[in-house]
């Protein structure tokens, strides 16, 4: 099976969908002539032309709104945000227009739109450019939110997102774009709302998504050397969340660590823990522990940034704690 980057997996997903359906088009800052700020749309302008690969001014609210309008009249826009930090300006269109239109029009207007871009912290981009937005977006009824952690999941999920008739927010990662993984040549789709058990183990579950899947897998590798076998549940979709997969894993292991990039308060992990206490109460042998970013704006200084981010040592420490080993 070919090994390609996360970046190319996303590009392949959009290209295949644009080839398959001429209502699909890509719009955003630097997507055409510059071929994408992160080169996801490399070669798109030449292949599809400027009607379907559209450069916009630096006006997130404006082009998000154009996208919603286009979706209302039957097109299937893919809107690229240079990062989700900039998409904050577009949230009115995402939350008040895209998410609500089907409901407020009494079902007359479907909004088959994809909003995508990198999410969370990269390296030393400081407080305003290092934020993980999934809990903000997943809070909103009417939105679907996905956070693929591998090239395979990125391609399969993005294709499903483009074919979905609802607005889907795709949370990618600057640090993920260069990661590589096996992606088959033949077409495949990954359904939204389905978690993936990335690794099987009977001692403790790590429930995670997006970039933190890589951290969870490393933690599982290290802990396996001590004889601790981890069930790694990759949510893949934050909303709708695969509650069954969470329950199945926790009922097996009786212990869980919830790992995410974002902040603690009202984070995605809080929702996961709520599902666990509702569905798995009688199966818990220890309180669930969360690993997340420190409750502070992301520091610029390298050492402080490292201290603030969730990482491998913190994930391992959490597992040991939940196993009552420390």
């Amino acid at each position, binding site marked *: 099976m070919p090994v390609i980057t996360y970046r190319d997996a996303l590009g392949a997903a959009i290209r295949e969908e644009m080839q398959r359906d001429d209502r699909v088009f890509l719009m955003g800052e630097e997507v055409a002539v510059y071929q994408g700020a992160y080169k996801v749309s490399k070669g798109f302008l030449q292949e599809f032309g400027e009607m379907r690969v559209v450069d916009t001014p630096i006006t997130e609210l404006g082009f998000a709104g154009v996208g919603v309008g286009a979706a209302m009249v039957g097109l299937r826009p893919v809107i690229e945000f240079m990062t989700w930090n900039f998409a904050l300006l577009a949230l009115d269109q995402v939350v008040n227009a895209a998410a609500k239109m089907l409901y407020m029009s009494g079902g007359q207007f479907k909004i088959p739109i994809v909003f995508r871009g990198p999410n969370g912290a990269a390296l030393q981009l400081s407080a305003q450019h290092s934020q993980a937005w999934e809990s903000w977006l997943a809070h909103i009824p009417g939105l679907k939110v996905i956070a693929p952690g591998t090239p395979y999941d990125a391609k399969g999920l993005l294709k499903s997102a483009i074919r979905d008739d609802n607005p889907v927010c795709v949370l990618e990662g600057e640090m993920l774009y260069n990661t590589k993984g096996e992606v088959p040549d033949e077409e495949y789709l990954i359904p939204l709302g389905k978690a993936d058990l990335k690794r099987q183990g009977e001692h403790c579950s790590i429930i995670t998504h997006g970039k933190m899947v890589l951290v969870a897998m490393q933690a599982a590798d290290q802990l396996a050397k001590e004889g601790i076998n981890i069930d790694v549940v990759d949510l893949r979709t934050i909303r709708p969340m695969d509650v069954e997969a969470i329950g199945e894993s926790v009922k097996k292991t*009786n212990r869980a660590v919830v790992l995410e990039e974002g902040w603690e308060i009202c984070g995605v992990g809080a929702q996961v823990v709520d599902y666990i206490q509702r569905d798995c*109460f*009688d*199966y*818990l*042998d*220890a309180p669930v522990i969360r690993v997340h970013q420190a409750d502070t704006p992301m520091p610029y200084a390298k050492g402080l940034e490292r201290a603030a981010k969730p990482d491998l040592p913190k994930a391992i420490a959490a597992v040991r704690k939940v196993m*009552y080993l420390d």
Partner: protein
Amino acid sequence: MATKVFMEALSPTMEEGRLVKWLKNEGDAVKSGEALAEVETDKAIMELVARGDGILRKRLINEGDTAPVGTLAGVIATADENIDALVAGAAPAGAPAAAAPAAPQPAAASSVPTRPEESQGEASTPPQQRAAAAPPVPPAAPAAPAPAPAAQGDVRSSPLARRLASERGLDLNSVQGSGPNGRIIKRDIEAAAAAGAAAPRAAASAAPSGPAIPREGDFHDEPLSQIRKTIAKRLGESIGPIPTFYLTAEFDLSRVMEMRKAMAELGDQFKVSVNDVLLKATAVALSQHPEVNAHWLGDKIRYHNRVHLGMAVATDDGLIVPVIWDADRKRMSEISREAKELAKRARERKLRPEEFTGSTFSVSNLGMFGIDQFTAIINPPEAGILAIGTSEEKLVVVNGEPVVRNRVRVTMSCDHRIIDGAVGAKFLQTLRRLIENPLMLVY
């Protein structure tokens, strides 16, 4: 941070304990692991140890008093730590409970957390400081007659552990927790179940109402000792629900006697008793009859691969059954030494819990009392027990001639749910072969 001292479950079946003697005074410095008091459990006198460092600030159970497992027995804290709230949660030993004040106190008083170490608030103020900062009003019980959380509330357990305990009919009070703050977790339930320790719950006790009115002076009442209570409970459970039948056989001991004589002639260190030979033979027979070396677990039968032989020992306080682990694999000399040692320490009440739990089959010998034969009561969940009578010379017929032979009568009580008549009989057949040909025991 203060450490609470609880009446702990010091034996697997202990539900309450009598505090025999405090080994530390209030004000003494104590270290984690140091003995604080002697506690009489249902089986032995054990040491209750400190679970934290500090000063033993308060003793909450009087010497001689009995308290359920989980009762707060004392508080270890630093010298200046305020422990009022902790102590107030327990009924102080020998002191009447503080009466509720007539006039309602300011709201602040009732908001003093009664268990400050568990406060879930923001960590801006350490909980113990918050407790200390509260007005020095005696923390009164809430006006509403809320039932004070009894000992039960102090047995911490995970939801999973509670579910498993309830599925297996284990009483959490009889399980020792190994999680944080003594929390009972899954592994503790599994360990307890494996030890066959915790007794099934709530055997209904119907007291027959006898019409006879005894006269003054006909009797004297004696309170039940812990060990007597346990015997009553365990054996009552046994004779009630266990469909028992009995098989009796008489074995010839001629060759055992010859062997003993020959061994004794080699020197004192080679002396073995008839009982030692019988224990060894029983263990070897069990290893050949796993269908008898079994436990009844309610929904399944557990057949043991190892033979741990329980041997009933009479003590001044009552019966106890120490265990010779892997008795089938031990040499006669080891069994002899171990049996002597266990019996001695049983009589001194110095057995450790692991020395009187885990038996897979038991033997009871009343031969030394001149009992010809008797039936013993099965020690649940075991499948059977062997009752050994006295060995004595008897006139028996061999090849049509009357001869004098040493003989012993054994009676096996069998749980018919596990063992059928023929199965028990075959076991006794093997045992007869071994005892009548004791050289097989050294093979």
